[in-house]
């Protein structure tokens, strides 16, 4: 079962996805990577017909399983092994040189530097800029005076800081002096904290909250749903995948105004195609907005057409370099693009 031995006769490559403990239902990069894989083989997530034949997934319960799981997958002769998230970087750096003929790919990392590893990194700050911009424009459209905004992070660190900085700069491009609160729950799995903080902020008059906090972020969405359902004009912003559906509270009405999209599925598709046509090579692939790596969701019908138009316009400016987005708090602060006193950390 699995592995090269079972490769399809049509020459499609085999792949194993390795994930951390959260698994492929994390609504984040694991889910997206899986979605891309499934799509490549013409299956759907609900009915992965070729699972176990051409592709499969293994979830590591603890981090000390990363290296053994990588080696095990390498033994089984898959054409490609995919891992997601920077926590896998060290394990991959260790294993990849030992299996020089095995192809690997990793998402969110650009420092493995092995000839048999294709590395994908995403410009999260660009997508985050867009959702910040969208939220600010929507607030303006709603006629809100001095709207305030919130950001909830999981565990602080450089990656999450990219999200926060992009978001902050997006807002500030509309309201240069907008008040922006931030909060790090220090945990990826405590929605109650995000929910309590979100309620607190919404009560204070915050208009929109963007959370990049894994399962913790579910609390924000839950709170936004409740308040919208009660008729309050507040929003949550989804992250990684399009969380429009998660935010639906009635009919097609969703409390998720938009989502910062990080299309890891594109990495899956790209790398699988590269393996199939023999163009696979090691090195870093930067997935920016221009490459459709990041973006924002327009699924919510309440996101006004005008806002969409303006945000799409900004996209062009980002691509052309007219809008410059800082990735670190240090830089953003120095350039005056972010307010002082945020809890973001650069390492």
């Amino acid at each position, binding site marked *: 079962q699995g592995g090269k031995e079972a490769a399809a006769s049509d020459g499609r490559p085999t792949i194993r996805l390795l994930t951390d403990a959260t698994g492929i239902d994390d609504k984040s990069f694991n889910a997206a990577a899986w979605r891309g894989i499934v799509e490549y083989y013409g299956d759907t997530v609900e009915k992965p017909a070729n699972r176990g034949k051409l592709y499969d997934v293994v979830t590591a319960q603890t981090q000390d399983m990363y290296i053994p799981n990588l080696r095990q997958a390498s033994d089984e002769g898959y054409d490609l092994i995919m891992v997601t998230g920077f926590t896998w970087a060290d394990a991959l750096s260790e294993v990849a040189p030992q299996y020089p003929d095995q192809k690997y790919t990793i998402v969110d990392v650009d420092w493995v530097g092995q000839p048999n590893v294709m590395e994908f990194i995403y410009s999260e700050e660009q997508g985050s800029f867009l959702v910040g911009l969208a939220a600010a424009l929507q607030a303006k459209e709603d006629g809100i005076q001095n709207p305030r905004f919130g950001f909830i992070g999981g565990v602080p660190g450089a990656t999450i800081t990219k999200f926060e900085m992009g978001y902050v700069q997006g807002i500030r491009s509309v309201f240069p002096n907008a008040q922006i609160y931030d909060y790090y729950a220090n945990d990826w799995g405590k929605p109650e904290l995000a929910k309590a903080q979100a309620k*607190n902020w919404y009560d204070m008059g915050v208009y929109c909250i963007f959370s990049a906090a894994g399962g913790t972020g579910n609390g924000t969405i839950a709170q936004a749903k409740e308040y919208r359902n009660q008729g309050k004009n507040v929003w949550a912003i989804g992250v990684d995948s399009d969380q429009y559906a998660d935010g639906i509270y009635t009919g097609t009405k969703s409390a998720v105004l938009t989502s910062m999209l990080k299309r890891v599925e594109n990495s899956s598709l790209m790398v699988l195609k590269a393996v199939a046509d023999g163009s696979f090579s090691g090195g870093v692939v930067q997935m920016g907005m221009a490459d459709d790596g990041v973006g924002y969701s327009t699924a919510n019908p309440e996101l006004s057409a005008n806002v969409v138009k303006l945000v799409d316009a900004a996209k062009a400016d980002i691509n052309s370099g007219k809008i410059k987005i800082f990735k670190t708090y240090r830089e953003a602060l120095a350039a005056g693009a972010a307010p002082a006193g945020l809890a973001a950390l650069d390492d």
Partner: protein
Amino acid sequence: MSMIWGMLPSVLMIVAPILITAIGGMICEKAGVVNIALEGLMAIGACTAAAAHVLMEGSGMPHSLSLFLALTMGLVVGGLFSLVHALAAINLNADQTISGTGINLLANGVTIFASQILFSADRTREFRMGMQTDALGIYPTAYIAIAVVVLSWFLLYKIPFGVHLRACGEHPGAAESVGINVKKMRYFAVVASGVLAGLAGGCVVLTQTIQYTSNTINGRGFIALAAVSFGRWRPLGVTGAALLFGTAQAFAIIANNIPALRVLPTEVFNILPYVVTLAALVLFSGKNYAPSAAGKAYEKGAS
């Protein structure tokens, strides 16, 4: 100050499930059975309630009816699983911590396994709308918790049933000799703790998040267990203990919003509730308030 008052509904949201579970644990220990499976039972209740709500809501059932039935099912399944503990602890004189540990482990697997069967995913599908707050911004869970506290107090101290139940935890031999069916009482208590833990699990998912994941309960059952002894096995004491935990959690958020406190590492506030509890336990140590027969198997007729 207004910020702290504003946090009250959130504090209640966090406290309510812990309190409900702790009251269940208290009743159980009052009857002489220690239940360290609270954590697992909460998980089972949470998973059941979330799954049921998703499925019923999706079938077009009225929202509040669906919520009600979901909670009920969480409560029933929690109660059913607690029967395992009851059987082991009451009929078979098993070591009560062992069967509790077993249920906790089992719950890890069973909830996810069930989600895979129902939703082909490691978690339940997300529901549309959980519980709603009232005009004061307070969830029904807070009222459920208050009702549970009052009811438990009434049950344990105001009617003969409670006197009988407590006697089973203090001196089962005495209870047996006056015709109280110790096994039945203990069964009631264990199942009550399972039911309340299941209910509380449902309360957690339906107020704090949008779906059940393996991380949803996240130690709350153990905190409830601690609240039982910290609260000295009295409804009011347990309420106080649960409130302390909830408030300390909220304090981490409040501290975040006060610039002066932001210089401290967040972890300091994360640690706070646990350190406070430890300190309080040392400070108020001395007399042992635990029911004297708690944790010991009772063999009929033994004196």
